[in-house]
């Protein structure tokens, strides 16, 4: 079969989080040198697209930006989102077989509520894309496979209560790496139990361990879920030269993973070995997507022999899977006086914004529902400024009771709270109530 692979290369050469910050201008410079010198853009099956700025409505449908989205510098992030959306649309419209959004800045640490940049991310490229495709094309089942070495806690946060989005993250164990989440016990909310799968690996498993896990755990899960589209959050920090992590994967290993997963769209996430890894890993992924031979991609540095392999790995991964399969939920039910009828599952967490060192506290309530994903209420507070922000989310394909519950909550809260987002995904509408005014999107 002839493949058509779309690429948007948006290195944001004039944007950084600080001169010596890992997320700086230089990050994709050598990737550009490598990919352009290799002439990959001249392959007949490769089509280069130009980046675009995303519509803010597409963002706010998925992420509530506090206290006011206009106070954040979103330009570069909106282009990264917009670029992902261009490729996603071209794939759904069958213009392309698959695509690679080779973009900066990344997004998978950015969650449902946003007070700033964390883990180098402000907007969640993949999540915004997924919900945009659902709103525009009516897609029902979608999957994200996150191969960044860090747990994609932002993406997990956004889809935790969504039974129609399968989120699988394979990463280095959160006890040894930022953001410190992504354990096997995190399997989804009350209406979406089992649609979040976390595979925290011990350091050093290498190509062999990754490929085994894909073949024996991730691919069967995808087969079972039958998504209409698979997005790969393609972080490149599993590479053996990565300065922050230690998973020991090679560029060819990334090529193989891509070949196995066959994502519809790969979106670049992290990866900060900008000389040792990125030029080679990006090339291997792109070649694998385009159906070309990537066996010639060889990084100049040689792999250090420190792999956890053979029997040791097999027993580790079997124990992990067994543990994952045996985890049972333990819901806490709680509600406030003004809540509409039904059982509400409560959860709370603190989210650390490492870029500017502050915390957000989140208290979430999900309406337990046998018919839909359930309406969600998120109470968010910035623990540095004590500003508050609320989100009421009515899910895609919400049942009538849950949709009504969302509006009832909005009515009950709008007099007493100053900053509320009502995200009605079912009707593709967002209402932002700020002070006494309301802004309507959609």
């Amino acid at each position: 079969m002839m493949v058509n692979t779309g690429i948007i290369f948006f290195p944001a050469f004039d944007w950084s989080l600080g001169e010596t910050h890992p997320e700086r201008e230089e990050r994709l410079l050598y990737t550009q040198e490598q990919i352009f010198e290799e002439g990959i853009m001249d392959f007949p099956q490769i089509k280069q697209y130009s980046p675009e700025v995303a519509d803010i409505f597409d963002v706010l449908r998925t992420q509530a930006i506090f206290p006011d989205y206009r106070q954040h510098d979103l330009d570069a992030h909106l282009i990264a989102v917009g670029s992902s959306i261009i490729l996603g649309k071209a794939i759904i419209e069958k213009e392309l077989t698959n695509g690679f959004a080779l973009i900066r800045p990344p997004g998978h640490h950015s969650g449902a509520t946003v007070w700033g940049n964390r883990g180098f991310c402000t907007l969640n490229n993949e999540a915004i894309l997924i919900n945009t495709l659902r709103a525009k094309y009516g897609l029902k089942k979608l999957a994200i496979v996150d191969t960044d070495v860090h747990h994609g806690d932002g993406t997990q946060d956004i889809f935790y209560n969504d039974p129609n989005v399968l989120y699988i993250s394979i990463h280095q164990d959160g006890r040894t790496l930022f953001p410190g989440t992504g354990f096997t016990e995190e399997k989804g909310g009350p209406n979406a139990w089992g649609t979040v799968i976390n595979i925290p690996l011990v350091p050093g498993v290498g190509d062999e361990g990754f490929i085994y896990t894909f073949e024996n755990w991730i691919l069967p899960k995808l087969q079972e879920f039958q998504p209409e589209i698979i997005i790969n959050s393609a972080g490149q920090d599993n590479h053996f030269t990565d300065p922050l992590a230690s998973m020991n994967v090679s560029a060819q290993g990334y090529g193989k993973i891509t070949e196995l997963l066959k994502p519809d769209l790969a979106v670049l996430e992290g990866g900060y070995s900008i000389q040792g890894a990125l030029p080679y890993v990006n090339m291997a992924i792109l070649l694998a997507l385009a159906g070309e031979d990537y066996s010639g991609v060889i990084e100049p540095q040689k792999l250090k022999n420190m792999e956890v392999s053979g029997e040791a790995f097999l027993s580790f991964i079997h124990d992990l899977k067994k543990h994952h399969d045996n985890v049972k939920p333990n819901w806490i039910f709680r509600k406030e006086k003004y809540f509409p009828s039904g059982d509400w599952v409560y959860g709370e967490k603190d989210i650390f914004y490492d870029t500017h060192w502050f915390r957000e506290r989140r208290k979430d309530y999900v309406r337990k529902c046998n018919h839909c994903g359930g309406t969600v209420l998120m109470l968010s507070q910035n623990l540095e400024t004590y500003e508050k922000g609320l989100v009421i989310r009515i899910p895609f394909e919400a049942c009538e009771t849950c949709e009504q519950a969302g509006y009832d909550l909005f009515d009950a809260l709008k007099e007493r709270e100053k900053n509320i987002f009502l995200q009605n995904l079912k009707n593709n509408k967002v209402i932002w109530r700020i002070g006494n005014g309301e802004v309507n999107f959609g």
Partner: protein
Amino acid sequence: MGYKIGIDVGGTFTDTVLIQNNEVIKKGKVLTDPKNILNTVLEAFDFLEIPPSMPLDHITVSTTLVTNAILLNKLSKVNLILFPGSGVRLSSFNWPVKYSVLSGELDYRGREVLPPDKREWKELTQRLSSHSENPLVAIVSKFSHRNNIFETELKAYLENEIPNVHIALGSEWGKSNFYRRSLTTYLNLACTELFSNFRCNLKKAVISRGFNGPIRILKADGGVFPLERIRPVESIYSGPAASILGALAQSEPEESFIVVDIGGTTTDIGLVLGGSPLLSFKGAQIDNFLTHIRSLATRSITVGGDSTIINRNGEIIISNYRTGPAYCMGGNSPTPTDAMRYLNYIKIGSYQKAEEALAELLPENERQALTIRTLAESIIEQMVEKIILAIKQLLTEWKNEPAYKVWEVLHQNLDYKFNIYLSGGPAAGLAKTFENKMKTRAIISNWAPISNAVGAAMAKPTFSWTLNLDTSLAKYRIEETGEQGAWKGAKRPYREVEKFLVDISKEQALEMGIDFDSFKIEPFEYFPLVDNHRTIGQIVRGSVHLPPGVIGRIL
């Protein structure tokens, strides 16, 4: 101001024009002899009947010499030697020529990963000298635009071993893209002998007619370059460039427009944005060769005034070939020109013949005046629609140009109001239809029939100097000239880099014999290089251009 001569060699006719003080003094056309382009150029020159005493500024020639040689595969044999290193397999590309491979590898900053194997070089020498005493050799290494060491070392080695070897290096075409650099280096070397002969004979012939002034050759990027200094392969596709320059010479300085040059068999389309011709963001493709040759963004489609019209099972179709002139001009088959003549959009050619040609396309019982008229109109519509489709593709290509900076994405200006400039023989017959369909003004200049020659005569020289400076490795490279040198300046330079590049450009322009008056500096890019949380240097990229343009506007 002295006199300027413009000569544009086309497929069928060669246009020629004499201009003084922005006025056309004399113009004409001669038949092109594709087998003898030199004679054609000289005939066009002689047609102008210039007295030897006339003060000539320059003669500019736009020629299909190299284009034809490539398309007809009349090139010299070149040995292509590659240092591909690792990465994408060479077999992943379609190679229109043979190559041989040597070991050795550089990385993206030009650092050596694997040294070459000198034993292979010895074998190579034997192979090259066994086939020819004066072999042509093109040597290209991956990342040679960042470090030409393998190329220059092998060159020195071969020149020592084979005294009459003639060598070209990939780093002389120093843009990234190993595949294109290889093919461009190959093509240029392969047409060097052919072009040298043309150069010598043209120079001699012109001198024998009493002129000693500069001869300039038009390039695909719409600029001219001295005959002595042009790299032969850069003279391809100068025809479409000439028509865009021709329109530019007849337009207002800040105007935006689409150039449509309609010939006998092909129509060329180009784009001018606010007075600047749009350059293609990729190099030109010729035959199966993807190259680094800078060219104006153009579209060529095979439809023209002499395209043969056929009746395929009752459907009237404009074919993509020509069998001769239009029927109304004494040809054998019906053409769009016959439709234009019948509708009185043009006045040359026989009206009766045109009517006859169109009637032939209809069943005998339908050959009434009204039906013929409808047919003629539908032919014109079909032709214009084909051209408009190509215009739309070109506009899409322009709008989809990649951007690599936030600033570029936020400041994309797509808000132009386009006129249409029509040139070429059949232009007059199509203007109305274009205006109706595109809802914009269609302009036919006074000099439309010889617009290309005007464009050649009025074109300015073009060149670019693109700097890649790596202060951490203390090296700089100029992509277009292949110059690579040591950087002795600061680790973290700022504005002085711009001056550094402008000084190099100025000096080299002088040496190449081109004016360096209206240069443009692209915003420089500065990449701080960080190692272990410390800034250890900078990569700086920037460029200075002499963009395409015209010396003056024709009155």
